[in-house]
C-alpha cells in the first residue's frame, strides 16, 4: 500500500509541532507501508522561504518530494489580514486570501497531488489550517485522511474550514478534546476517526546528576521545555513562579529549555539553558520535581508525554482543555486556572515526593497504554484497514 504524508515542512532540523509529529509517524509507518512524504522546500515557519533543495530527498530512510513555495509569507501583511478577518464581517474570498497568505503557497505541490492521485492509496494530511491541507484535501478528498492538529484557535471558526472538515474520509485525532471540538464545529461525527496522537521514545538511561553538575543546578527545580513564547503561557509562568517563591519563601528553581522569543526575567531562581541536546533534555526532565506546561493552546503536548514516560508529574494550565483532559484521564498531573491554584498545586507537588512518585507512576501507565509506538502504529493501520473494507 502506498501512502503519501503531506505536511507543510519536513526535515531533521524541525524539532517540534505537527512537522515532527509527521516525521515520527512516517518513519515508524514505513515498515508497514510504502511511505512517501510530499512537502515544500520551506524550513522557516514564519516566511516559508525555500530552503531545502528542490526534488527528491531521503530523510531517515523515508523518501521525500519537495515542492517550491511560490510566494513567501509576509508576516506583517498576514497579521493585518488575520486581524481583519477575525474582527470583521467578511466574505469567503477574504478567507481564501487569508489562506494564501497563511501558506505555504505551493501550487506545484497541489498540482502534483491532483495529477498523481492514482499513484497513492491514501494521502495523510497534517495540520488542517495550511494551504497544502485545504487545497490538497479538495483535490483528493476520496483518498484523504486528516491529522488536524487543531487547537482552540479562532481561525478554526472560519467558514472555509467548516466545509473542509467534512471532506476527509477519516480522521486521526490527537486528543479526545480535539475530536469533540472538531465534531462540534463541523458536525462530522459520521466520519471515521480515532484518537491516536503520537508516540515518543525516551532513552533507557538518563543522567540527572550529570545534568545538575553540567549546568550547576542545586536544590529542587521544576522544568519547562518548549518554545519560550507568550503564546505558550511563559509570561504568566514567570509571574506566577516568582510570586510563588516570594509568597512561600521557597528556593525552588525554574529551569527553562528551548528557543527563546520572550524576554526572560533576570532572577537567580530562573535558569535559562537554551536549546539542549536530547540527552541533556531528558536528563534535565528526569531530575526535575515536575514538568510545568503553561501553554494555552495545545493539540497534543509531546513533552508532557515524555515527562510521563519518565514517570514525572506535570503541572498544566487548565485553560488548555487538552492538557486538563490529559491530566484527568491519566491521573498523572495537577492543573491550575489562576495563581491561587498554581501556588497550592505546586506547593502540594514539591512538598510530597510520594505524590510525585504516585503521579509519575500513573503517567507511565497512561503512556504505556496509549502512546507507545506499537499502539500508535496499530491505530493508524486500523484506520486504513477500515477504509479499505468500505471500498
Amino acid at each position, binding site marked *: 500500500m502506498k501512502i503519501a504524508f503531506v505536511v507543510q515542512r519536513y526535515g531533521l532540523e524541525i524539532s517540534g509541532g505537527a512537522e515532527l509529529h509527521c516525521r515520527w509517524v512516517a518513519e515508524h509507518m514505513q515498515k508497514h507501508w510504502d511511505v512517501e512524504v510530499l512537502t515544500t522546500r520551506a524550513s522557516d515557519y514564519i516566511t516559508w522561504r525555500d530552503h531545502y533543495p528542490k526534488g527528491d530527498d531521503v530523510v531517515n530512510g523515508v523518501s521525500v518530494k519537495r515542492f517550491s513555495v511560490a510566494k513567501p509569507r509576509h508576516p506583517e501583511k498576514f497579521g493585518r489580514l488575520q486581524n481583519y478577518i477575525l474582527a470583521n464581517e467578511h466574505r469567503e474570498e477574504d478567507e481564501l486570501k487569508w489562506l494564501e497568505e497563511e501558506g505555504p503557497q505551493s501550487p506545484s505541490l497541489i498540482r502534483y497531488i491532483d495529477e498523481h492521485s492514482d499513484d497513492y492509496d491514501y494521502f495523510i494530511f497534517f495540520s488542517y489550517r495550511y494551504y497544502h491541507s485545504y487545497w490538497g484535501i479538495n483535490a483528493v478528498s476520496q483518498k484523504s485522511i486528516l491529522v488536524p492538529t487543531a487547537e482552540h484557535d479562532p481561525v478554526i471558526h472560519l467558514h472555509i474550514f467548516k466545509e473542509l472538515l467534512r471532506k476527509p474520509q477519516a480522521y486521526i485525532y490527537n486528543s479526545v478534546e480535539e475530536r469533540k471540538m472538531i465534531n462540534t464545529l463541523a458536525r462530522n461525527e459520521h466520519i471515521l476517526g480515532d484518537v491516536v496522537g503520537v508516540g515518543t521514545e525516551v532513552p533507557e538511561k538518563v543522567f540527572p546528576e550529570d545534568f545538575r553538575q553540567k549546568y550547576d543546578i542545586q536544590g529542587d527545580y521544576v522544568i519547562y521545555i518548549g518554545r519560550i513564547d507568550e503564546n505558550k503561557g511563559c509570561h504568566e509562568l514567570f509571574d506566577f513562579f516568582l510570586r510563588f517563591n516570594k509568597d512561600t519563601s521557597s528556593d525552588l528553581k525554574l529551569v527553562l529549555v528551548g528557543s527563546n522569543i520572550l524576554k526572560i526575567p533576570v532572577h537567580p531562581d530562573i535558569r535559562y539553558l537554551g536549546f539542549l541536546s536530547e540527552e541533556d533534555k531528558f536528563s534535565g526532565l528526569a531530575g526535575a520535581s515536575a514538568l510545568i506546561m503553561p501553554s494555552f493552546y495545545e493539540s497534543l503536548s509531546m513533552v508532557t508525554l515524555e515527562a510521563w514516560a519518565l514517570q514525572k508529574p506535570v503541572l498544566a494550565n487548565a485553560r488548555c482543555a487538552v492538557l486538563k483532559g490529559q491530566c484527568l484521564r491519566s*491521573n498523572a498531573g495537577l492543573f491550575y486556572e489562576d495563581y491561587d491554584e498554581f501556588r497550592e*498545586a505546586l506547593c502540594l507537588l514539591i512538598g510530597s515526593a510520594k505524590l510525585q512518585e504516585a503521579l509519575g507512576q500513573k503517567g507511565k501507565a497512561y503512556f504505556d497504554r496509549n502512546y507507545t509506538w506499537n499502539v500508535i502504529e496499530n491505530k493508524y493501520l486500523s484506520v486504513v484497514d477500515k477504509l479499505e473494507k468500505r471500498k
Partner: protein
Amino acid sequence: MNNQDKNKTTKSETKIQIDYDNINVADIMDQIKAKIAAMPKSTPEPIPPPQGLASPLTPPPDMPPEAEGGRSKLKRLLLKIMKPVAPLIKLLILPVHHDLTETIKTLDLTNRKLDYWSEKLDRDLYRVNETLNTKIEEGDKTVNKRLDLAYDEIGRIKEYTKLLHSLSHNVVVELTKLKIEEEALKMKSRILEKDFEFLGRRERALEDQVFK
C-alpha cells in the same frame, strides 16, 4: 481505603487528603479549589496616611534660621588672634565667603520649601485617594444594586418568555387539531353530498320503473 495511605502534608497538607494507592487528580483539584475558596480573600492593603497627617503642616520658611555655631570659645580666640590681619583676610576671602554663605542659605531655603511641598503633595494625594475609594465603594454598591435589579428583571423576562413559548406551542397544537377536524368535516360533507346525489338518482330510477 486504608487510613495509613491517607496522608496529610504540612502547611497546605493539613486539609488535602490523598489516597496514594489510588490517585484521583479530580479529587485533589476539588480539594485544592475548596481550600482556596475557604481562604480569606486578600484585600488590597490600605495606603498608610502620610506621617504627621494629624499635625498641622509647618508653613514654608521665608528665611532660614541662623546657624548656631559650636566651639564658640575657640572661634572667639581665633578671631582675637587674627584681628590684626583681619582686614587683609576680609579683603581676600570675603567675596568668596559671602557667596558661599548666600548659596548655602539659598539651598537650605530651597530644601525646606521642597520638604513642605512634598509633604503637602503627600497629604493631598492621600485625601484624593480616600475620596476616590469612598466614591468607588459607593459606585460599587450602586452598580451591584442595579445589577441585582437587572438580574431580577432578566429572570422575570425569562419566565415570561417561557410562558409565551408554551402558549404559542399550545396555540399551534390547537390550530393543528382544528385544521384536522375541519378536513374531516369537509370529507364527511363530501360523502354526504355524494350519498344524496346517489339517492336522488335512485329515486328517479324508481320513479321511472313505477310509472312505466
